């Protein structure tokens, strides 16, 4: 057993380094003395004897160093030395240090800030058991039915549960909302209405109490509810005695059976309570209102499940409704994709953009280091001459660059902390799990890693350059400003081309997203959005159980609000542009037999009060709007949108035709977007609120007042006077609803545009620096040229030519890279092709222009070179 002794020796050597070093010196002195004595005895003079002994011994400094290396601690000593030396150097050139650290801090800061979002949103695991086994399931149907996310019918759920062999279990849910009047403030609560197995499929336990029992989703089961941690703490003061108590939700009593963990935010983070569906045995295939959630069996891939599910037959009851079932196919998505959706792509794009910025920053610093290394050639050659090995010098230089990078990283982290705060302020609520964004251990680890890698990256290039210099070359060049060596110029050029091409890619991506956002913002929604106040007034509970109750409520509400000052038009509707539609449904046109094997037509069903079209400025294309005469007992009528008319009445006048169960078409109106601004227009059928019923109503008020929000109190008072317990939610202007719909694209466009701007500035500064440095280096040469009679123009051409070559190379590589990469953005782009040529051309112009401008100033300096001065300067 030797290692304890070896370890002991090592530790001794470490803790008594000074004494060990002293002893080593003594040992070597003794050696030299003995040898000297021998030499004297052989007849040499003392001086001669000493020199002979030293020659015989070799380089004693080197021997000492090598001996100390056997103690195993030199690496530590060297690092300390290098650090101390590096710090001293950085302090000695504060200008260089400040620029380099700041550049790095910007790059690393941007990177860290975005990573902290990526970390929270994409990397932290979802709050479910084995989330990779969870999939969302839908029908896939016509666009107006819900497209890829067409809801399920109860019959689908029962069929699939009974027949499939891929899933361990299938649950389903629908969104729901309840008015809660506990305390003094009536509140509208977002809820999820779920099957009893919902939580067992998720693999989530209650933090207090229990989740649902299997029998609790049957028809007529006792009303039970699970609460979110947030709601429990906010409204019930986190009272642990709440279990078993009943809550009054929309006029019905629900027994609280458990509190869910705080981390659970499924199916949406706004959900405050979960209740059970009351599954009635279906008598027909529809209606479609459920979203499915299934857990794959172990070892079953989603692919296999998809294949199996597509073979299932819709066995449910008779053939009478089979028609609507046949047009649907099975669709499934991993739950993480459902939760993250577009956000994942957007964040990855942002992360890539931030990384490009960091790369550009690193390239700039590499350029600075390269310039500085030129000034240090003499130092390095001296070191080499004194016996420093190449690896030793590289290590020292790497320590310096890492030191620089870590300082930049530290400052960058501070910037990131501030940046994250800004990010969270401008980030839309629709990005899931934003509340978990912060600087944690993983983020700091990432920053450290990124800093070190960056340091190595920008450190290595110039170092390779420096240490490759041969001694003679260094002695020849050292200390004298001669023309730049071609090797070094090549490095500078390579770096400039790299950063210009990276900047081109970033600018093009930003350009595409900006253009797409601009188009999205200007998309015609079909309504005029100014001066409209909107709010949701869901009519729930015993006071609105019967349709007649609704019939008496809405007219009174409209009438009262119409009398308020500065109110132009008032409307109640079940849908609101740009993205709130309640439901879509099949319809058929009277006198037109259903075509077998053809899906029946489908459209958004929009229920509106008579003034809806006037309030939203929807134009009439033919026939008439609804009027007060379209009452409950008058002949049923409907209005169709232009698209409906075009699609289903291609060569005939829809006016006067009848839609089965809905009545006669009396008008055609302009198209309105109800399914999001980026979606294509879907057919819509309007029905008067007097002849069809909805409990989920939006109240919209068009006003003459400059600020629609000034009407809120008056409108609320009117509602309160009709029903003091009616909760009002989603109060805001229509413009703010549109702004919310644009929030995510705006967020990512803003971010990527700022990154691109930063990249542009860095790249231009870098180009300027390199050209400017090159002019300084060539002052002598230019002086000679001018002295020999070169016209100013040719000098200008010389410098600009160098810059132009770099710019062209950078732009070309950047364009090629963009062609290859912008395809990844396709899903984020609206009405803009990923290779949109105006964007490509504009970016090319912008970047070449600024790059040339960056060369122009050094070039002007070059033509002013006074040959006498330039030559005397030597």
């Amino acid at each position: 057993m030797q290692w304890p002794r070896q370890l002991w020796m090592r530790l001794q050597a470490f803790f008594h380094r000074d004494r060990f070093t002293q002893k080593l010196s003594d040992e070597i002195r003794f050696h030299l003395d003995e040898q000297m004595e021998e030499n004297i005895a052989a007849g040499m003079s003392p001086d001669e004897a000493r020199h002979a002994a030293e020659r015989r011994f070799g380089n004693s400094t080197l021997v000492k160093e090598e001996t100390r290396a056997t103690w195993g601690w030199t690496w530590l000593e060297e690092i300390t030395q290098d650090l101390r030396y590096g710090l001293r150097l950085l302090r000695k050139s504060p200008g260089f240090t400040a620029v380099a650290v700041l550049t790095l801090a910007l790059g690393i800061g941007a990177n860290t800030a975005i990573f902290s979002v990526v970390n929270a949103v994409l990397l932290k695991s979802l709050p479910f058991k084995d989330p990779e086994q969870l999939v969302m399931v839908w029908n896939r149907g016509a666009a107006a039915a819900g497209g890829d996310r067409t809801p399920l019918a109860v019959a689908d759920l029962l069929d699939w549960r009974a027949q499939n062999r891929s899933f361990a279990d299938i649950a389903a849910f629908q969104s729901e909302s309840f008015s809660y009047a506990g305390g003094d403030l009536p509140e509208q609560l977002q809820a999820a209405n779920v099957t009893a197995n919902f939580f067992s499929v998720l693999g989530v336990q209650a933090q207090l109490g229990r989740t649902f029992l299997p029998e609790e989703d049957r028809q007529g089961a006792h009303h039970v509810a699970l609460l979110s941690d947030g709601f429990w703490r906010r409204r019930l003061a986190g009272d642990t005695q709440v279990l078993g108590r009943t809550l009054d939700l929309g006029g019905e009593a629900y027994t609280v059976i458990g509190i869910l963990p705080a981390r659970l935010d499924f199916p949406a983070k706004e959900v405050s309570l979960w209740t059970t569906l009351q599954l009635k045995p279906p008598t027909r295939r529809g209606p479609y209102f459920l979203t499915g959630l299934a857990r794959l069996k172990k070892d079953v891939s989603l692919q296999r499940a998809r294949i199996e599910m597509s073979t299932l037959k819709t066995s449910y009851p008779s053939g009478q409704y089979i028609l609507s079932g046949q047009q649907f196919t099975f669709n499934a998505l991993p739950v993480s994709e459902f939760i993250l959706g577009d956000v994942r792509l957007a964040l990855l794009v942002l992360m890539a953009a931030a990384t490009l910025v960091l790369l550009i920053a690193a390239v700039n610093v590499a350029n600075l280091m390269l310039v500085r290394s030129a000034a240090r050639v003499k130092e390095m050659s001296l070191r080499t001459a004194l016996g420093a090995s190449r690896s030793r010098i590289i290590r020292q230089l790497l320590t310096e660059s890492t030191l620089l990078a870590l300082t930049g990283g530290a400052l960058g982290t501070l910037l990131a902390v501030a940046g994250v705060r800004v990010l969270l302020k401008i980030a839309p609520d629709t990005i899931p799990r934003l509340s978990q964004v912060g600087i944690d251990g993983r983020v700091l680890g990432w920053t450290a890693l990124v800093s070190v890698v960056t340091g190595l990256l920008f450190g290595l290039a110039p170092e390779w350059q420096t240490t490759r210099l041969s001694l003679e070359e260094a002695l020849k060049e050292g200390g004298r400003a001669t023309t730049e060596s071609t090797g070094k110029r090549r490095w500078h050029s390579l770096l400039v081309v790299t950063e210009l091409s990276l900047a081109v890619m970033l600018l093009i991506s930003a350009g595409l997203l900006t253009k797409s956002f601009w188009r999205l913002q200007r998309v015609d929604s079909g309504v005029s959005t100014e001066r409209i106040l909107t709010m949701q007034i869901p009519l729930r509970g015993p006071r609105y159980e019967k349709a007649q109750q609704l019939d008496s409520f809405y007219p009174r509400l409209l009438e009262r609000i119409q009398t308020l000052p500065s109110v132009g038009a008032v409307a109640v509707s079940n849908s609101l542009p740009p993205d709130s539609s309640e439901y879509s449904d099949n319809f058929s046109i009277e006198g037109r037999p259903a075509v077998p094997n053809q899906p029946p037509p489908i459209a958004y069903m929009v229920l509106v009060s008579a003034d809806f079209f006037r309030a939203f400025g929807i134009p009439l294309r033919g026939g008439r709007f609804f009027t007060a005469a379209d009452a409950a007992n008058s002949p049923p009528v409907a209005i169709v949108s232009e698209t409906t008319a075009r699609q289903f009445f291609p060569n005939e006048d829809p006016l006067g035709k009848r839609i089965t169960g809905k009545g006669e078409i009396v008008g055609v109106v302009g198209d309105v977007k109800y399914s999001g601004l980026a979606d294509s227009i879907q057919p819509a059928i309007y029905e008067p609120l007097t002849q069809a019923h909805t409990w989920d109503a939006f109240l919209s008020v068009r006003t003459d007042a400059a600020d629609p929000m000034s009407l809120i109190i008056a409108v609320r008072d009117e509602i309160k006077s009709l029903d003091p317990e009616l909760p009002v939610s989603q109060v805001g202007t229509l413009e703010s609803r549109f702004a919310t719909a644009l929030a995510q694209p705006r967020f990512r466009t803003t971010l990527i545009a700022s990154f691109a701007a930063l990249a542009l500035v860095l790249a231009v500064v870098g180009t300027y620096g390199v050209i400017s440095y090159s002019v300084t280096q060539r002052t002598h040469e230019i002086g000679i040229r001018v002295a020999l009679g070169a016209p100013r123009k040719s000098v200008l051409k010389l410098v600009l030519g160098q810059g132009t070559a770099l710019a062209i190379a950078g732009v070309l590589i950047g364009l090629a890279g963009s062609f290859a990469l912008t395809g990844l953005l396709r899903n984020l782009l609206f009405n803009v092709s990923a290779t949109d040529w105006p964007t490509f051309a504009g970016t090319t112009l912008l970047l070449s222009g600024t790059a040339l401008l960056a060369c122009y100033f050094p070039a002007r300096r070059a033509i002013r070179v006074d040959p006498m001065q330039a030559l005397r300067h030597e």
Partner: protein
Amino acid sequence: MGKPSDLVQGTLDLLILKTISLEPKHGWAIARRIQQISNEVLQVQQGSLYPALHRLEQRAWIKAKWAETETGRQAKFYSLTATGRAQLEKETANWGRLSGAINLVVEST
């Protein structure tokens, strides 16, 4: 610039171990002894002895002790440890095999 050593490292280790196997010696004496015994053929660059000595000491094959020389000066004396002695035997045997083999090859042609 190579390392200032004319001897392969393993060989130098063997020479050192052998030299101090009879009695403890200090660095200079080891250098002298190697030179004398090899009839001045092995010209060790004397400095290169020290990294080797310290490495062997770290490996606990030899141990060191400061003591007085016959001239009354303080010097660091190196001697073999038990491990070092075992190692010497192994290395000697190895060397014998190796040099024997090389001799065979060299003389056969």
